[in-house]
C-alpha cells in the first residue's frame, strides 16, 4: 500500500487512468445537444427562413467538468483509498495480546475492544498468529490466526477485580509453558496491581524472555468509589483516583427501591476532585427513611464496578424499643435494667422508650423487654403478631420474671423455654460454688467463634425446664451446661431470652465487650464500622447479588457461600465476587475498593515503550467516492436534459416521484401489523376467524355494516372491525366478539380456551351465531349447532335461557320484541337470570340489576343481514320486498341493542328509566 498525506491506496496503478481524462474532454465536447421537437401549426410561415448565424454547439464547459469529475471519482474510488492507513507491523512473530480486563478498564471498554479489533486486523494483515490472555482470568496461550481470535473477543469482559498475586503467577506459568517466541502487546488499564507488584515484575520478565513488549495504556484516569460510612448523622462518601490531574466533577447517585419497589435514584450529589488531589469527599445527609432504602452509590458517569459502593446494614440504623417493668424508676441509673442496653445500642440504633402500647404501632425492628413478666392479653397478642411478621423480641430475665409464674407449666409463645421456679444463684453468700463462666459457643450458634473474655461470670440466672426441645433452642450456655441464652423461631421472627438481667446485677456479661458483639450477631444493633475478620469467624456468607465488571448488580445464582473472615480479608476473585452477602439475618456488602484504598498508577520498566490508544482508526474512502460519482452522474443526467431543452416541469416531477417511490420501496419497513396499542386506541368490533374465508368475509362485512349503523345512529363510533385469531390476538381489547359457527370449525387450542375463559370472566361477551335458524327452527340440531356444543363444552358458560320479554336487550337502545337476522324466528339464548324476583304490579320489567350476559347464542345469521359492501349497499337479500327491508332494519336495531348492552351493561334496567319507557310503550 502506498501512502501520502495520510491517504493510502490499495491499487495505486489504477490512478494512471486519470491521464485519460484530457482525451475524454475533447471527445465529449464535440457532441452537440439533440434538437427539441416542437409542434407548431404556424410552421408554414417559417418555411424558408434560414439561420442567419451558424453557431457551433458544444457541450457547456461546466457539464464537461461534471462528467470528468464523476469519472475521476470512479477511478480514484476503485483505486481503494484509505484514510489514516495503519503502519504495517514489521515483525512476523506471533503476537500475544495481554489485557488487564479489570474493573478499571470497564469504563472505556468499547474503546478498548475497538483497539483490540484494530490490532487483530493489523495482525491478520501481517499474517501473524495471535493469542489473547486476560490477566483476571489467565488461560494457557493458544496462538491462532487473528481472524479466529476476533470472534472470541466478544467473550472477553472486564471482571470486577484486579489481577491478584495468584492470577499473575498463573499467567507467568502459562507464558513459561508456551514453547515459542512471540512479541507482546499489553493493553493496560493504567493501574498497578495492589499487593502483586513483584509478581507483575516476574510476569514482565517472563514475557521479555519470549520477545519484545509494547504497552498500550488507557489514558483515561481511573476513578474508584470507596464504601459509604455513616458518620455524625451523615453519609460520608470518598472517591479516589489513580493520577492526580485537573479538577474534575463526578455526579454521584444514591440508588435504591422506592416504596413501589422500583429502583430509582434517591439522592444525587457531586464529587469534586480538586486539581492535583487524589481523593474527593462528599457528605450526604439523608432522612432515616431514605437512608434505609439506599442499596448502592455509584458515580453516574463512570461505568465500572469500582465506581459502585454497595451499602449494607451499616447505613441502616435499627429502631429498637426498650421496655422495662420499672416505670418511673427513681433508683440509681446504674441499676436501671436498661442502662447497659442503652449504652450498647445508642451508637448504632435509634432507641425508642415508652410503653409497649405506644411503641408497637411504630413498628420497631427490635423490642427489648427487660425483666417484664406479664403483658396485658391484648398487648401480648399484638406482640405475637409483630414477632410472627418478622420482629425480633429480646427478653432479659430479672427478679420479677424469676418471681412470677410466667412459663412455668406450659410454654408461652413469647418465651423460648419453660422456666423453673425461683431461678438459680451461684457463688453468692448463701450458695456453694463459684460464679460460672461461659462455655465456648457451639457450632451452629450465632455466637460461634466469638471470643469469650475471662472476666465474664454469671452469678444468678433463671433456669430452663428440661425439655426435648431445649437442646435445639440453646445458643449460649454456661460452663456447666446450663442454658444462658435461648432462642426460638416464631413465624418469620424470633424470640431470644437472656437468662440473666440486662444490668450487672446477676452477671458481668453486660459490662463486657462480648455483650455488644452478641447483640450485633443477633442483628439487634448494626455495626457502625466495618467488621473485622475475627468478628465474622465461624460464619458462612451466601452471595445474594454480585457486581459484574461494569458495575451492574445481578443475581448471584448458585454461587457457593464464603467464610466470614475470607469475606473481609481475601482478595476478590472468581471465588469471591464483590456483591451483597447474607448470613442469617445479617447482610454485608463486599465492595470492589475497601475502605482507605489507594489507586496506584502502573509503572513500567524504562525500556518498555508505552503508547496511548490510537485516536484515528483507518477508514476506507472508496465507497464514499463511488457514491459521490453516482450522485455526480445523476446530476449529469439532469443537467444534460436541461441543456438539450428536454427538461420539462412535468418530466422533472415524474422523475422526482419515481425517485421518491424508489426510496420508499427501498427503505420502507415491513408493513406493521396492527399493534395492541392501535387496537386499544379505539372501540372495535371483533369477529373470530373461523378459517372459512367466505364466512369470515361475511362476518367482516356484517360488522362493518353494524359499525356504520352505530356510527350514524348512536354515540358509539367504532373503528373498522378486526378479525381475531384466538391463538394469537389479545382478546381483552374487544368488548364483543362475533363468532359465526361452521360445522368445520377447528377446536380452539387449550391456550385459546384459557384466554377465552379469562375474557368471559373479565366482562367480555361472545356472540355465537350458528346461522342455521332456517333449518333448526324445527328443533333439529344442525351440524353448526352441534359444533357449537362441542366447542362450548370447555367454556365457562353460565346457565342459559331464551331472552325473556323483559330482558334488558329489548330496550338498551331500541324497543324490540324479537331479534331477526337474515332468518326470522330463531331463538336467542342469554344467561339465565339468577333469581326470580316477582314483577311489580304495573311495571313490565323485573328488577334485574346485575350482570351483562357473557354469551348470546342464536342462529339468525345476523352478519348477513348487516353486511354491506364497500359502497355501503347491502350485500345479501333479506326477506321479500318492503317486509324484508323492515326485517333488515330490525336486525340492525338488534345489533345496536347488543353493542349498547355490552357497553352500558344493565343501565337501561335501572328503574330510573321506567317512566320514560312506559311512556314510549304507551302504557
Amino acid at each position, binding site marked *: 500500500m502506498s501512502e501520502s498525506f495520510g491517504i493510502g491506496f490499495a491499487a495505486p496503478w489504477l490512478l494512471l487512468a486519470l491521464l485519460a481524462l484530457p482525451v475524454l474532454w475533447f471527445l465529449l465536447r464535440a457532441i*452537440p*445537444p*439533440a*434538437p*427539441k*421537437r*416542437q*409542434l*407548431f*401549426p*404556424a*410552421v*408554414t*410561415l*417559417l*418555411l424558408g*427562413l434560414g*439561420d*442567419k*448565424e*451558424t*453557431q457551433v*454547439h458544444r457541450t457547456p464547459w461546466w457539464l464537461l467538468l461534471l462528467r470528468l469529475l464523476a469519472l475521476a471519482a470512479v477511478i480514484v474510488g476503485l483505486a481503494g483509498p484509505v484514510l489514516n492507513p495503519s503502519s504495517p507491523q514489521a515483525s512476523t512473530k506471533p503476537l500475544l495480546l495481554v489485557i488487564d480486563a479489570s474493573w478499571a478498564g470497564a469504563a472505556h471498554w468499547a474503546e478498548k475492544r475497538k483497539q483490540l479489533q484494530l490490532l487483530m486486523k493489523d495482525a491478520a494483515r501481517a499474517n501473524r498468529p495471535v493469542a489473547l490472555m486476560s490477566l483476571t482470568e489467565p488461560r494457557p496461550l493458544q496462538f491462532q490466526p487473528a481472524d479466529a481470535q476476533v470472534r472470541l473477543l466478544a467473550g472477553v469482559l472486564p471482571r470486577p477485580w484486579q489481577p491478584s498475586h495468584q492470577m499473575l503467577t498463573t499467567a507467568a506459568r502459562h507464558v513459561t509453558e508456551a514453547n515459542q517466541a512471540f512479541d507482546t502487546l499489553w493493553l493496560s488499564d493504567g493501574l498497578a496491581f495492589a499487593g502483586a507488584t513483584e509478581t507483575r515484575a516476574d510476569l514482565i520478565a517472563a514475557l521479555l524472555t519470549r520477545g519484545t513488549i509494547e504497552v498500550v495504556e488507557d489514558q483515561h484516569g481511573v476513578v474508584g468509589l470507596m464504601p459509604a460510612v455513616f458518620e455524625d448523622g451523615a453519609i460520608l462518601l470518598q472517591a479516589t483516583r489513580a493520577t492526580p490531574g485537573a479538577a474534575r466533577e463526578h455526579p454521584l447517585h444514591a440508588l435504591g427501591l422506592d416504596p413501589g419497589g422500583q429502583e430509582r435514584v434517591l439522592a444525587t450529589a457531586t464529587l469534586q476532585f480538586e486539581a492535583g488531589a487524589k481523593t474527593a469527599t462528599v457528605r450526604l445527609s439523608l432522612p432515616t427513611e431514605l437512608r434505609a432504602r439506599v442499596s448502592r452509590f455509584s458515580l453516574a458517569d463512570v461505568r465500572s464496578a469500582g465506581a459502585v459502593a454497595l451499602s449494607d446494614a451499616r447505613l441502616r440504623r435499627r429502631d429498637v424499643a426498650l421496655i422495662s417493668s420499672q416505670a418511673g424508676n427513681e433508683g440509681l441509673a446504674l441499676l436501671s435494667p436498661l442502662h447497659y442496653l442503652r449504652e450498647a445500642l445508642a451508637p448504632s440504633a435509634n432507641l425508642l422508650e415508652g410503653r409497649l402500647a405506644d411503641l408497637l404501632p411504630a413498628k420497631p425492628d427490635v423490642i427489648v423487654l427487660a425483666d417484664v413478666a406479664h403483658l396485658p392479653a391484648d398487648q401480648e397478642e399484638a406482640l405475637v403478631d409483630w414477632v410472627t411478621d418478622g420482629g425480633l423480641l429480646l427478653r432479659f430475665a430479672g427478679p420479677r420474671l424469676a418471681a412470677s409464674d410466667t412459663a412455668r407449666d406450659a410454654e408461652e409463645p413469647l418465651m423460648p423455654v419453660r422456666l423453673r421456679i425461683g431461678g438459680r444463684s451461684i457463688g453468692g453468700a448463701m450458695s456453694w460454688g463459684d460464679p460460672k463462666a461461659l462455655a465456648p459457643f457451639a457450632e451452629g450458634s450465632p455466637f460461634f467463634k466469638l471470643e469469650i473474655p475471662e472476666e465474664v461470670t454469671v452469678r444468678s440466672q433463671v433456669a430452663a425446664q428440661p425439655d426435648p426441645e431445649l437442646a435445639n433452642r440453646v445458643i449460649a450456655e454456661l460452663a456447666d451446661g446450663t442454658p444462658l441464652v435461648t432462642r426460638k423461631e416464631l413465624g418469620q421472627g424470633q424470640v431470644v431470652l437472656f437468662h440473666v438481667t440486662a444490668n450487672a446485677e446477676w452477671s458481668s456479661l453486660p459490662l463486657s465487650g462480648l455483650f455488644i458483639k452478641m447483640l450485633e450477631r443477633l442483628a439487634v444493633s448494626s455495626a457502625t464500622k466495618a467488621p473485622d475478620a475475627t468478628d465474622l469467624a465461624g460464619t458462612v456468607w451466601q452471595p445474594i447479588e454480585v457486581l459484574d465488571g461494569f458495575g451492574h448488580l445481578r443475581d448471584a445464582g448458585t454461587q457457593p457461600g464464603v467464610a466470614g473472615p475470607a469475606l473481609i480479608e481475601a482478595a476478590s476473585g472468581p471465588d469471591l465476587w464483590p456483591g451483597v452477602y447474607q448470613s442469617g439475618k445479617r447482610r454485608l456488602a463486599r465492595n470492589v475498593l475497601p475502605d482507605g484504598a489507594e489507586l496506584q498508577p502502573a509503572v513500567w520498566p524504562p525500556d518498555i515503550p508505552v503508547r496511548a490508544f490510537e485516536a484515528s482508526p483507518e477508514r476506507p474512502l472508496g465507497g464514499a467516492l463511488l457514491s459521490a460519482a453516482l450522485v455526480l452522474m445523476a446530476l449529469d443526467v439532469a443537467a444534460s436534459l436541461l441543456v438539450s*431543452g428536454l427538461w420539462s416541469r412535468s418530466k422533472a416531477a415524474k422523475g422526482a416521484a419515481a425517485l421518491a417511490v424508489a426510496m420508499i420501496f427501498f427503505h420502507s419497513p415491513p408493513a406493521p401489523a396492527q399493534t395492541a396499542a392501535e387496537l386499544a386506541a379505539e372501540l372495535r368490533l371483533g369477529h373470530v376467524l373461523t378459517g372459512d374465508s*367466505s364466512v369470515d368475509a*361475511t362476518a367482516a362485512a356484517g360488522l362493518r355494516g353494524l359499525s356504520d349503523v352505530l356510527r350514524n345512529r348512536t354515540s358509539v363510533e367504532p373503528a373498522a372491525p378486526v378479525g381475531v385469531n384466538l391463538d394469537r390476538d389479545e382478546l381483552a381489547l374487544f368488548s364483543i366478539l362475533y363468532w359465526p359457527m361452521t360445522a368445520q370449525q377447528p377446536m380452539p387450542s387449550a391456550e385459546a380456551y384459557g384466554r377465552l375463559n379469562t375474557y368471559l370472566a373479565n366482562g367480555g361477551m361472545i356472540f355465537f351465531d350458528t346461522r342455521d335458524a332456517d333449518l333448526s327452527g324445527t328443533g333439529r340440531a344442525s351440524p353448526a349447532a352441534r359444533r357449537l356444543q362441542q366447542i362450548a363444552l370447555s367454556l365457562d358458560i353460565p346457565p342459559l335461557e331464551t331472552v325473556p320479554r323483559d330482558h334488558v336487550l329489548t330496550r338498551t337502545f331500541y324497543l324490540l320484541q324479537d331479534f331477526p337476522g337474515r332468518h326470522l324466528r330463531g331463538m336467542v339464548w342469554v344467561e339465565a337470570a339468577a333469581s326470580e324476583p316477582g314483577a311489580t304490579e304495573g311495571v313490565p320489567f323485573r328488577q334485574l340489576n346485575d350482570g351483562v350476559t357473557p354469551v348470546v347464542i342464536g342462529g339468525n345469521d345476523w352478519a*348477513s343481514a348487516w353486511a354491506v*359492501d364497500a359502497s355501503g*349497499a347491502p*350485500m*345479501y*337479500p333479506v326477506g321479500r320486498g318492503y317486509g324484508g327491508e323492515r326485517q333488515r332494519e330490525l336486525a340492525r336495531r338488534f345489533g345496536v341493542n347488543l353493542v349498547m348492552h355490552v357497553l352500558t351493561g344493565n343501565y337501561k334496567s335501572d328503574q330510573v328509566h321506567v317512566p320514560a319507557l312506559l311512556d314510549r310503550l304507551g302504557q
Partner: protein
Amino acid sequence: MSPESPPRASTRAAALRGPGAQLRLRAEEAASPLPPLLVQAEQLAGAVLLGEHGRRRSGVGDDFWQYRPVQPGDSRRSIDHRRSARGDQQFVREREWQIAQTVQFWTDCGTSMRFASREDLPTKGARARLLALATAILMVRGGERVGLTGGLLPPRRGKIQILRMAETWTEEQDTPYAPPEHRALVPHARALFISDFLGPMEELETALTKSADRGVRGILLQVLDPIEEAFPFAGRTRFESVTGALAHETLKARALRDRYLDRLADRRDAMDHLCRQTGWQLGLHHTDQSAQAGLLWLHGALGRSAVQSS
C-alpha cells in the same frame, strides 16, 4: 349461485363483455362531444340574448306591432274591425317588419386547428366550432336561417338546424390546411369563415373574390394559439406541423422570432387588404381569451354588416 352469495347489481364492466357492447360504447363515445358543445354554445349564446335583430319597426311580418289610425291611402281591407268597433275611430293593425337573413358558416376542421399549446387551453378547432355554433344559435333565435357553405347543409331555420350543424362539425378532416369552402353560397347572404388562415393565401383570395362576386359579405375570424403570436422558443428546435408533413429545423430559434412575427403581420395585412377590397370584416381571436369576447365581437360584426346591407 349459493344462497350465501346472491346476485349483485350488474356492473359496467360486466356489461361490456356482451357482444353488442363495443358498438354501443363507440356510439356513446361518438355522441359524447355533441352535447357539451351544444350546451357550451347555448350558454354562450344565452349571455348575448339581446341582439339587434328585432327590427322594431312595422313591416311585413307575423307579430303584432301597433294599431294606428287609418290614414288616407290605406285600403279598407286593412282596417282592424275588432279594434275599430270599440270607438268611432278606425284603426289599422300593423305587423312588425320581419326579414329573414341567411348566414352561412365555414369553420376550418383541418389538422392545423387540432392544436393547443397548453393543456388548459382548448384547441383552436374546438374554439372555432364553439364560436360558430354559438353564433348560429343566436342567429336562429333571431329568426335567421343558418347553414353551411359547400352545399352540405343548405340554410334553414329552426333548432334542428343547430343540431345538424353540430353533428357535421364533429367530423374531423385530415386536410392539413383546409382551404375555405366557398361553393354553394346563396347570393346576397352573409358568411362567417373561422380558421387560423395559415394555409396558402391564394385559396383565401379566390374564396373571397368569388363570394364578393355573388354579393356575399361576411366575416373572417382568425383563431390563433397564444404561442403562435408570441413565439417563445430558443435553442435548437425542429418545428413540425400537426401531421408532421411539414417541418422546419433551426439551430437558433430565438433569432427566428422577429422574422416570424414580421411574416405573421404581413399575412394579416394581406388579409385586411383583401377584406377591404371585398367588403368583408376581419377579426382576430386567441384561444386564451374568453369565448364570450369572441362571440360578442362576432355578434356585433354580424349586426353591423346587417345594418350595412339593409
